[in-house]
């Protein structure tokens, strides 16, 4: 396989930036010509003092500030891309995140409906560009870069909102889980400094970049070629987390389930809040000896070795968040357990929640979910695995056990979870004279609410140059 042209690819697609601060601008075009020139200056303004789009090229000096961006379909139109060209773009992207059919499909309903979104994101037609800045050193670096960018895009773009994010201590997210453990291994991507084997096939780069072969042996493309090769798509998401509500859920429902709080937290997620996966350590989040860092992702849910096999979800429930979002080797309808991958680039926003001084500050997770095909990856995950229990294939087991019977409802962490129908199954294996049995938790609410979203096209550097000179 010929090497990828890293310099033509937006960095966040292939590289996980190790950063602690972010700011996401939501922009609307006010002057198409000025907007196009501004975009051009982000790729040909080296030396001008303007931050440049970060590419996947190896850096010799780590950038102080990283910059990547995407455009919605209405954004491309506002920049002057002809309708005939946009008609050839994927249907989901053209529909957009605020479309009623999209919202219904991915579970952005009720309080998560696009009409409730903030930061200007509820008006999909007016949202044109999402521009993200990341920095490791300090928030001040973000502010410096923002000042320069704001001066530069004044008159070209209107700033609808800017949402800041900041890492919590120890790679935690607001619900207390350890994040950033698992990402797909992508063929041809820059090698990672901390390899973590995951027993999954390496994903062809065409799952995350247009113009390269994908897992199906095909290639996702758009026309013209300048907009296609090395570009991608993403779902930008703002996910508000109700920490008090989730902690109350854990208190109340752990009692109902007859387990302790940390066990229930682990069961609904798939990992202990320490990051240790249930499959490798079903009884404790702090195994002794500790799990080596490079083994924390080295497992599958199914195995020919009975000592390692968790087909029925006795260690990691079939309906847990991680097992739904990535079934690994578990058999699913369609046969696509390894075929719907996603790259996640998200960080917490809002201050840490202190139960001793409760507040109503918005807090959650914000960032990019990157896919070469929004429908087959993001929309598939949300509609078929997160929000349904029907995707599991029958595997008969002892005493009538079956993974099909060991899942119900929707993902506790990400599902729509109408309390009238919400359900989470905790399977228990047969033991002695006790047959296989399940406990079902019902009546809980959603603890994650979608507060914003946008389907974006992530242009290659070539595509940005092309758009700049339309």
């Amino acid at each position, binding site marked *: 396989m010929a090497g990828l042209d890293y310099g033509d690819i937006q960095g966040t697609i292939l590289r996980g930036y190790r950063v602690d601060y972010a700011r996401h601008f939501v922009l609307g075009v006010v002057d198409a010509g000025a907007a196009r020139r501004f975009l051009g200056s982000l790729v040909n303004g080296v030396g001008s003092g303007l931050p440049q789009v970060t590419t996947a090229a190896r850096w010799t000096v780590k950038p102080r500030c990283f910059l990547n961006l995407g455009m919605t379909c209405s954004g491309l139109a506002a920049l002057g891309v002809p309708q005939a060209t946009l008609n050839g773009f994927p249907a989901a992207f053209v529909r957009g995140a605020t479309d009623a059919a999209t919202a219904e499909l991915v579970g952005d309903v009720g309080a998560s409906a696009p009409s409730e979104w903030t930061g200007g994101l509820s008006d999909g037609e007016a949202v044109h560009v999402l521009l993200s800045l990341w920095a490791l050193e300090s928030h001040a670096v973000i502010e410096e870069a923002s000042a320069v960018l704001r001066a530069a895009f004044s008159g070209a773009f209107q700033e609808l909102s800017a949402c800041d994010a900041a890492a919590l201590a120890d790679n935690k997210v607001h619900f207390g889980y350890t994040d950033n453990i698992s990402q797909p291994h992508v063929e041809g991507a820059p090698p990672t400094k901390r390899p973590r084997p995951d027993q999954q096939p390496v994903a062809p780069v065409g799952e995350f970049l247009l113009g390269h072969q994908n897992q*199906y042996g095909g290639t996702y493309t758009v026309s013209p070629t300048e907009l296609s090769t090395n570009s991608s798509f993403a779902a930008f998401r703002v996910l508000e987390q109700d920490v008090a509500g989730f902690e109350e859920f854990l208190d109340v429902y752990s009692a109902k389930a007859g387990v302790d709080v940390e066990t229930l937290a682990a069961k609904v997620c798939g990992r202990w809040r320490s990051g240790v996966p249930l499959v490798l350590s079903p009884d404790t989040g702090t195994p002794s000896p500790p799990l080596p860092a490079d083994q924390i992702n080295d497992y599958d849910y199914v195995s020919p070795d009975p000592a390692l096999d968790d087909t029925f979800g006795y260690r990691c429930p079939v309906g847990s968040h991680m097992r739904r979002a990535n079934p690994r080797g578990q058999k699913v309808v369609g046969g696509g357990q390894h*075929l719907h991958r996603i790259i996640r680039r998200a960080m917490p926003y809002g201050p840490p929640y202190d139960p001793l001084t409760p507040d109503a500050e918005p807090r959650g997770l914000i960032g990019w979910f990157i896919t070469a095909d929004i429908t087959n990856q993001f929309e598939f995950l949300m509609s078929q695995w997160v929000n349904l229990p029907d995707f599991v294939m029958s595997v008969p087991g002892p005493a*009538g056990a*079956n993974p099909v019977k060991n899942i119900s409802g929707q993902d506790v962490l990400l599902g729509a979870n109408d309390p009238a129908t919400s359900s989470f199954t905790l399977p228990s294996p047969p033991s002695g004279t006790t047959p296989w049995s399940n406990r079902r938790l019902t009546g809980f609410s959603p603890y994650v609410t979608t507060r914003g979203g946008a389907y974006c096209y992530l242009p290659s550097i070539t595509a940005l140059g092309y758009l700049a000179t339309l």
Partner: protein
Amino acid sequence: MAVPTPPNPLTLIMPLRQGADLGQLQGLLASHQEAINTALGAVGTVHYARFVVLDASSPNLQPLANSTGPFQLAVITTYDGNFDMYIQDFVQQLPDVFDALLGFTTDGAGLVPARDNVSQLTAWIKANDASQQPPNSLLSQYAAYPYTVQAILAEQGS
């Protein structure tokens, strides 16, 4: 017991190109029947599926001896869930069969290879699925049982 999830109908009617060789088509389907059955099992959402050859020149659409058509190949199934979402995974199971069948049609040859044209294939299937178009989309259907293939197999211990 499983949550009731009534299945959905597919009545895909693919117009075959003028001069399409029915014998060749039958041979293709026969030689791939085992692969097709394996793929349907692996997909796991199809309750029943059959191919039906129709003849538009015949008053009751049944192929007449020595007829030159025009013919259609119908694919009639009952399946669980969202068909559109699974087309790509389905094509993955049988890429050559999809491409060969599309080659027999009047206007599907341009979708070959199917794996490069999934969204267009999805739209083409929808347009040719009589169950998704009025008036058929407005007619109610009967289901003897409202359970998915996998729920039934699980209850059977399969």
